[in-house]
């Protein structure tokens, strides 16, 4: 038994961390904040070539590496730690997972190799405006071609994506449709989101041509997609919290007031200890959900919600405490503390607030007989 990274996973972590600090440090990301995409496409291609990020969880038969969810989590954590705005989560994790789960072989064969080669980018559009995640209002209809209509929100990297995978009502239940960049009737607006390092978009479709990618999905198939998204965001938040913790501790060691490092005051020390505790709890919850995603899929519904709520609460608390420990300097635009706080706040509400996940856990564990052996 090993609750922690294997040697291979640790090696992956180090190479991603090295890539992030060399190729997309936060100072560079800041310069791209007002740019068209928020990131540098050349860096994404290099991440594909040098680290194989785009291809990681794609099966070898489609040109990928068939890596585990834990490995993807190792990457997400480093990108969270660096607030790296590469389209890894959107294209290489969420869109890829959607294709693997909901598209038929033909369309997998059509799209996955080009995603693996970082030649194309995809994203998923699943959350309807003013609806819970799985109550799909966007519809797809039409005889020869299919026309998609409706409005999706919180779509990651929609402006950068070559293809948007839309979950829409097929008439026989929700199914996955591909809408290409620039299709008629599609409108992409950037959301005024708090988070500056992960762009989210409102995407509306009005009789927009779409390609059906597979049969209607089961409720559990769709739910699993959301579970995976929650797990991915959870481990991203672990990286965010870890970075904020280390910023705070490093600053507390050098900043002096009253002729002492502020980190020698128990008020600051104990706040840092609490940040550490939250971060470690979050890490355990997120890594467990990642492991479960591969090894005990029946447990993912619970483990992903535990992870998402725990990591969201932790990341918000830790990044907020980091601002506090930095004092005035932490309140400035030039300091990175607010970028982490914004990221944590934004991620906490994506794919369901901590409260909504707790509510779902409560319903699951109090309805009828217990479905799981809580003794594990």
């Amino acid at each position: 038994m090993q609750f922690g990274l294997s040697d291979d996973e640790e090696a992956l972590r180090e190479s991603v961390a090295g890539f992030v600090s060399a190729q997309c440090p936060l100072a560079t990301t800041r310069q791209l904040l007002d740019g068209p995409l928020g990131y540098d496409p050349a860096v994404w291609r290099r991440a594909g070539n040098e680290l194989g990020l785009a291809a990681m969880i794609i099966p070898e038969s489609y040109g990928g590496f068939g890596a585990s969810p834990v490995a993807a989590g190792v990457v997400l954590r480093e990108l969270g730690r660096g607030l790296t705005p590469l389209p890894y989560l959107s294209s290489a994790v969420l869109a890829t997972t959607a294709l693997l789960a909901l598209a038929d072989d033909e369309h997998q064969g059509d799209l996955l190799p080009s995603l693996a080669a970082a030649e194309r980018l995809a994203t998923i559009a699943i959350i309807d405006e003013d609806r819970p995640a799985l109550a799909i209002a966007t519809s797809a209809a039409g005889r020869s071609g299919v026309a998609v209509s409706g409005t999706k929100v919180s779509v990651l990297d929609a402006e950068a994506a070559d293809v948007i995978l839309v979950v829409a009502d097929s008439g026989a239940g929700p199914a996955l449709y591909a809408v290409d960049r620039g299709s008629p009737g599609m409108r992409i607006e950037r959301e005024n989101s708090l988070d500056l390092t992960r762009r989210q978009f409102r995407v509306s479709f009005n009789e927009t041509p779409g390609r059906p990618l597979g049969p209607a999905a089961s409720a559990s198939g769709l739910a699993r997609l959301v579970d995976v998204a929650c797990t991915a965001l959870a481990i991203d938040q672990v990286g965010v919290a870890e970075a904020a913790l280390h910023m705070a501790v490093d600053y507390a060691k050098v900043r002096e007031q009253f002729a002492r490092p502020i980190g020698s005051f128990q008020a600051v020390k104990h706040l840092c200890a609490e940040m550490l505790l939250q971060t470690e709890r979050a890490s355990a919850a997120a890594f467990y959900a990642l492991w479960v995603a591969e090894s005990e899929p029946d447990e993912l519904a619970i483990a992903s919600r535990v992870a998402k709520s725990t990591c969201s609460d932790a990341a918000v608390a830790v990044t907020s405490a980091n601002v506090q420990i930095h004092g005035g300097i932490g309140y400035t635009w030039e300091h990175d503390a607010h970028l982490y706080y914004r990221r944590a706040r934004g991620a906490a509400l994506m794919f369901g607030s901590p409260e909504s996940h707790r509510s779902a856990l409560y319903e699951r564990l109090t309805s009828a007989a217990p479905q799981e052996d809580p003794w594990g």
Partner: protein
Amino acid sequence: MDLARSDAQRVFRDELRAFLVAALATEVTDDFESQRAWQRALYAGRWVAPHWPARYGGRDASIEQFAIFVEELARARAPQLANRVGLQTAGPVLLTHGSDDQRERYLPRIASADDIWCQLYSEPGAGSDLTALRTAARLDGDTWRVSGQKVWTSFGAESDFGLLLARTEPDAAPHRGISCFVCDMHAPGVDVRPLRTMTGESEFAEVFLDDVALPPDALIGERGAGWEVGNTGLASERGVAFPLKEQAALQILLDELLDRVRRDRVVPSPIQRDRIAQDIVNLHVLRLMNLKTVSQLSAGAELGTWSSLIKLTWEEAAQHLADTVFETTGPTDPIDEAGRGAAMLRYRMASIAGGTTQIQRNILSERRLGLPREPRRT
């Protein structure tokens, strides 16, 4: 225990209300020059600083009347006063410690917003520990030569004068060697640069002072007494004005939220409903704590460490409410004009500025509860 308002207070309030209704009949915008025009309109009615002596444009009003004044302006959703730092910070300092000449020269123009003032206290290395400030004023003949760096200056760019704390006696104990000055913000060597905060706005400035020459009569009060001089009014009108204005700002934010709930534009979850109810409770209690401030001052008592209780009550109420607003409102329909989450970001500074949470707790535990000071590093 008696919280009833006296007839005199009601008369004062009614007169002010009538004035505000008339003055606010035309739409007023909220940019700086409009705020200046608004302050002039108030000045014309002698409603800009009612607690000041009549000779400087005031009404010799009591602290209770001053509290009514602050609350009524907020209640009427009147614009801010352009020269609020001058009124709240420079005013009490000059009234108490200024020479006759200084008072005559500065106070009327502060009240009329002809001169705008800012405060030059905080430094990058002197935040929680203000006594660590390093900006130095050195006497050269009878001219003070000032060099150093100040931060968190509101109205830095608009100001004509700055109320400056600088070290004049390098060998004295940290808080004893400081003096208080009027700094001409147009003097050579004064460099004001905007300071952008996490909200993205530049509501503060950094001020660099490079061998700025100040005349002898720039000194306010005794040399070396700058710590006491500069903090004048902290525990009286500033101790009333700031919390009351902040209370009003939060009340407006809460009212906006409740209004949206009533019109179903915000549909809170059960947990969010409990959060909102706690916000209602917090604001109610903040109002009572502020009432208690006014009661103490009007009885002639010193506020002392009570101010730390007010600060902590406010910051908790502010951050809790701002977080509620963020969590309950969707991305497309923000309550804040500055966008969704703007208040949440802005109020991060509530637990930092004006003495951090940790500093307030230290003050309360040592000075109000009598717990031992911590050991100093050996």
